[in-house]
């Protein structure tokens, strides 16, 4: 049967490629490289990528709470992010299996069979995989248009995904990547003067970082209420992508976690058990 061999949590700013081209690899590209090293070591056959769409794959005319992409290929970025264009393979057999099991278990995932992916998936993949050649299974979580799914529901979805992977015939080695910010406001009343964004709640981000370090996941699930996430900014719901990841990998301390980024409130972590 297939197995989950690693979990990875990272941020996904669309500005990283331009920023790294301008300022050099420190610190962002260096930390992504550290993540890439761990991912190489576990040799995944496929990566289940959990992120929120930013009105690039979906729009409000049809905005799913949870969706999965089932196709042979995809492409991106589809949002004008300044980075290389990639055509990617999708592990469609696994994607179909995950959807079937999730629906049987009470998670009615929406499906798209023709789609591009935005920076939230492609910026991390660009930095942590060589040439983005590893086939992916994209899963989208609505972290963006209220009302968001609850942290508890996202965590439970992750657990269901794990049991679904474990009933997938074959020897697939699966890595799970969840990406997002913990505290970020874009375009709302909490932005900084003269800027398009801000980090309104660095303490919340530090707190989450400590919870991850100590594997206090049940506590984090209970704390991550809609009000708490919103207080951390209108993009604070991206923590939900991590919640799915945490459900999928089970409760472990991370093998690697970068020091907390006190400026942007980002976390980079790897879970392995080999």
């Amino acid at each position: 049967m297939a197995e989950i061999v690693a979990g990875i949590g990272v941020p996904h700013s669309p500005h990283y490629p331009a920023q790294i081209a301008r300022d050099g690899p420190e610190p962002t590209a260096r930390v992504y490289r550290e993540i890439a090293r761990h991912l190489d070591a576990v040799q995944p056959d496929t990566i289940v990528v959990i992120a929120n769409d930013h009105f690039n794959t979906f729009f409000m005319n049809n905005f799913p709470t949870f969706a999965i992409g089932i196709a042979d290929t995809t492409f991106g970025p589809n949002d004008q992010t300044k980075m290389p264009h990639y055509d990617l393979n999708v592990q469609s057999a696994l994607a179909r299996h995950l959807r079937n099991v999730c629906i049987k278990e009470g998670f009615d995932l929406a499906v798209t069979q023709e789609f591009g992916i935005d920076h939230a998936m492609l910026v991390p993949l660009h930095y942590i995989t060589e040439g983005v050649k590893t086939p992916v299974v994209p899963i989208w979580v609505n972290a963006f248009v209220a009302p968001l799914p609850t942290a508890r529901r996202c965590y439970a979805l992750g657990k269901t995904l794990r049991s679904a992977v474990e009933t997938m015939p074959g020897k697939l080695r699966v890595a799970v990547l969840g990406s997002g910010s913990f505290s970020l406001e874009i375009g709302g009343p909490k932005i900084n003067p003269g800027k398009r964004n801000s980090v309104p709640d660095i303490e919340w981000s530090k707190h989450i970082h400590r919870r991850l370090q100590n594997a206090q996941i049940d506590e984090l699930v209970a704390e991550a209420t809609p009000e708490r996430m919103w207080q951390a900014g209108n993009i604070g719901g991206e923590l939900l992508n991590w919640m799915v990841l945490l459900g999928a990998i089970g409760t472990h301390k991370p093998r690697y976690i970068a020091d907390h980024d006190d400026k942007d409130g980002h976390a980079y972590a790897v879970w392995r058990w080999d």
Partner: protein
Amino acid sequence: MSAYQVNKLCHRIFHDIPFREAVKRDPEAAIADWPLTDEERKALLAGDVKRLYERGTHPFLLSHFTRWDLFGLNAALYAERIHGAKDPE
């Protein structure tokens, strides 16, 4: 106003570059055919992002305007105007 059409307009501006350029050239003409309420049209043309936000325009979409200085908005002016806006219900 439901703000759906305003959100749709912002989305189109982001993804449809010729349309974006038309909005930049002549905002009033570019949105003339859009089914907006008078209040929405007026708020857009005045760059009144506080009102647009309070009536439900998604801030991620709304803030795209400052990338291309649309509706008279640059980042500084946008931040000044959005400050103190109440969250939509």
